């Protein structure tokens, strides 16, 4: 087997050195009747070519985003990632390293985590950021738990503009932990009355902007009301590129900012792996979940980096830990950091303007199609349209025509009476031809 270096001769010599007759003597603690007599009922080993063919066949049954006019968003976005990013994250020394427990030989990982934290803090306008979470949704769950620890309260108020999956994740976690959740009804227009939901029992208010329907929200009044009642504002985003153009959650006085970082550096990957961004005010550092990388010096006084504040973590604190998390999304962080470095402020802000411009063009084009109504007053690169027919059917028929038109709201919120609504996203990858194809196909279908 190509991955196994031992030869039969090696095995024989090693068993002799160990002093046992057969390898099964080393498995003697497994109850005899549970030790399998033969290989399990799965196919035997396969060469590279055969494996490639099997998986390529599966791959070819999917429609890839780059192969069609593509407007699907709702929490994951198709962007162009420079070739440099994927090349660098595949460097053996990055790819095949472990969590940097031995900092002296993991400065590569640690320095990029430090750079990542700095970038995330800058983007979100916050004082500190951690070394990433699994994704935006689990990060949001962790943010709510963190707010509970900070406020010593146990009730979260969730905006109706929060991504429904995120709501479900928070609800599941909270129910399991017997914490209270007040989730507002789906808020298509971004005009919900969330302020009235905040009182002295509120631990945190969770608001997404741009929200799942695309509306750009003003967080300042919510922060103000929350703070007045001793609650925290958790600001959420699912499209990190928007931060290139929109005022940061930090500047609107959010206490914790959490979001999905997939758009920068990372592929769609059918939903994972992604990278959760997590930032907060520095006074809450010791209640933060996840890994933190900090600066220090070595025995010679040279600057270096280490994982730090691990007394928050499970391997030290066990059942008293701030979270059970013991990894981050290291390689996805790296991809994020490299892509962000390539962009720089000049590139990111321009990328954001292009995304917004393309979305505006698309909204204008769709607004002229009969049977399509653009609902948003404000948006960044995604907005909601109301169709003359159920969106799920329309999307399916457009897919048959080779256009992936967006996400039917009913896919996220079945039974909510929003069946004719469609979320449409547009990024820098969309061309005039793409837009024209969508418009033409819609006209045929509606």
């Amino acid at each position: 087997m190509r991955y196994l270096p031992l030869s039969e001769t090696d095995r024989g010599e090693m068993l002799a050195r160990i002093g046992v007759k057969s390898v099964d003597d080393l498995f003697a603690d497994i109850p005899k009747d549970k030790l399998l007599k033969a290989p399990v009922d799965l196919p035997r080993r396969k060469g590279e070519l055969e494996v490639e063919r099997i998986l390529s066949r599966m791959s070819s049954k999917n429609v890839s985003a780059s192969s069609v006019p593509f407007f699907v968003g709702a929490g994951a976005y198709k962007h162009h990632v420079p070739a440099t990013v994927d090349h660098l994250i595949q460097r053996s020394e990055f790819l095949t390293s472990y969590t940097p427990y031995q900092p002296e030989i993991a400065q590569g990982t640690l320095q990029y985590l430090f750079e990542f934290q700095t970038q995330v803090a800058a983007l979100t306008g916050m004082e500190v950021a951690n070394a990433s979470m699994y994704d935006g949704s689990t990060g949001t769950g962790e943010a709510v738990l963190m707010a509970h620890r900070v406020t010593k309260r146990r009730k979260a108020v969730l905006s109706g503009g929060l991504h429904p999956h995120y709501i479900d994740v928070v609800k599941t976690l909270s129910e399991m932990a017997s914490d209270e959740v007040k989730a507002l009804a789906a808020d298509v227009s971004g005009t919900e009355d969330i302020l009235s939901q905040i009182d002295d029992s509120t631990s945190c208010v969770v608001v997404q902007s741009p929200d799942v329907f695309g509306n750009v929200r003003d967080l300042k009044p919510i922060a103000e009301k929350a703070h007045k009642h001793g609650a925290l504002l958790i600001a959420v985003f699912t499209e990190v590129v928007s931060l290139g153009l929109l005022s940061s959650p930090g500047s609107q006085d959010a206490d914790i900012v959490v979001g999905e970082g997939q758009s920068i550096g990372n592929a769609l990957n059918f939903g994972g792996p992604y990278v959760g961004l997590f930032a907060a005010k520095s006074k809450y550092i010791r209640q933060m979940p996840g890994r933190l990388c900090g600066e220090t010096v070595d025995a010679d006084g040279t600057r270096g980096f280490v994982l730090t504040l691990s007394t928050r973590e499970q391997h030290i604190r066990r059942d008293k830990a701030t979270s059970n998390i013991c990894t981050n999304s290291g390689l996805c962080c790296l991809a994020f950091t490299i892509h962000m470095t390539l962009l720089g402020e000049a590139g990111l802000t321009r990328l954001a303007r292009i995304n917004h411009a393309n979305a505006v063009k698309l909204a204008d084009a769709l607004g002229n199609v009969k049977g399509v109504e653009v609902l948003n007053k404000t948006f960044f690169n995604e907005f909601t349209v109301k169709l003359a027919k159920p969106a799920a059917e329309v999307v399916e028929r457009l897919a048959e025509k080779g256009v992936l038109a967006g996400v039917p709201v009913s896919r996220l919120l079945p039974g909510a009476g929003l069946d004719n609504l469609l979320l449409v996203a547009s990024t820098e990858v969309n061309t005039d031809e793409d837009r024209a194809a969508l418009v033409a196909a819609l006209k045929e279908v509606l």
Partner: protein
Amino acid sequence: QVEPLLFEIGRADTTGVDLDEPASFTPRLGGQERKDAIGLPGLSEPETMRHYVRLSQMNYGIDTGLFPLGSCTMKHNARLNERMARLPGISDVHPLQPISTVQGALELMSELARYLMTLTGTKAVSLSPKAGAHGELCGMMAIKAAIEAKGEGKTRNVVLVPESAHGTNPATAALIGFVVKPVPARDDGWVHVDDVKKLLGPDVAAIMLTNPNTCGLFEPQVVEIAKAMHDAGAYFYCDGANFNAIVGKAKPGDLGIDAMHINLHKTFSTPHGGGGPGAGPVVLSERLAPFAPVPFVRAGKNGLELVEHEQDAPEKPFGRITAFHGQMGMYVRALAYMLSHGSDGMKQASEDAVLNANYIRAGLSDLFSQPFGDKPCMHEVLFDDTWLKDTGVTTLDFAKAMIDEGYHPMTMYFPLVVHGAMLIEPTESESKSALDLFIAALRDLAMSAKKGETERFTGAPYHAPRRRLDETRAARSPVLKWTPPAPMAEAAE
């Protein structure tokens, strides 16, 4: 070798991408435009390349040397798997595309599920968990849901966890409101069914048992423990961190587990990537299967379907633990690993992993001390620091000295029940000659320590990108991001 931070070499007006400014248009941001600068310097592409290549050169990986980090399973990462993960129909597919356009993705998930269930002898699996600890959470949530479904939610709230367990076990249980009770450690390294029975009662929801355990030993009484739990109306959560030792040798389902997460990155070699991403699918017994969270794949009338909402399931999903469908990028790598190895290769891999660990044990047992006596281990061998007594060398010092010999240190000070623990896991990826060199290097270090050559250890590492780093200083006044030096900050004003 000191590489500056990108903030020290980057410039706000530099970019490594070429984008054309859009034609003028009317923004629809509702006046929420950013007014302030972000503070994100950029680098051109050549500078970016060099910066990150240089950073990488300060890292150690499996590709550069033996990486015997016990319990972490640093095995070979095949590049075939990387290539497969980048197929356009895998990497460039959106989680919310119409189901008709992702049939291959669902087939892949379904096939992965079949492999995992077959290898573990179980009837269900949730692919959602994003990492091992997330898998634990998912499994314990399923247990909690099952208990609540039986109306015992109020009364069964204790989870038994051996003292030797990973910290994630108690942390996970506590996270969702369980009370953790430790099962005391024994001097043979095993969990005894008698000890467990003493703690059992109507308040006990589950045990979280790692098997093979964190001492590198298979729990011989695992079947009895499972039976005791079930007899008491409780569940058996198995921490699958060490499943790689027994893949193809025994099925956890046959041993009586109710839930077990599988670290795809450990067992099936998806790259650790400097600390993630991983993936932690959790297999479930028939008793827990109905409570698996959404989403999951099932066969439907028009091909494979994805059940994304609780109301669409005939079962009783306990909810959702992440947006979308889990770590597809890891699924494809793990499946490529399993297809490549096949049933015969996976069995052989387990055997070689165990053989390699025992070969190291045999090569070091005369010099190093073992907390539970010199008996066969599974895929990792555990030493303590008794043998270092009076040498002035600690486990930490010894580990740092290994760096100077060109090796990544083993896992240290874990499990907590063993003093100065050194947990060595070579994995099946190492050749005999590599192990011989490793054993020789460790023996040489051991002799050196016993001869009193303390400086070789206390000052180590000498030959690494950095000398020993001051972790206390980092924690005392945390510096978690770069801040422009004062003069620069002034100049910028």
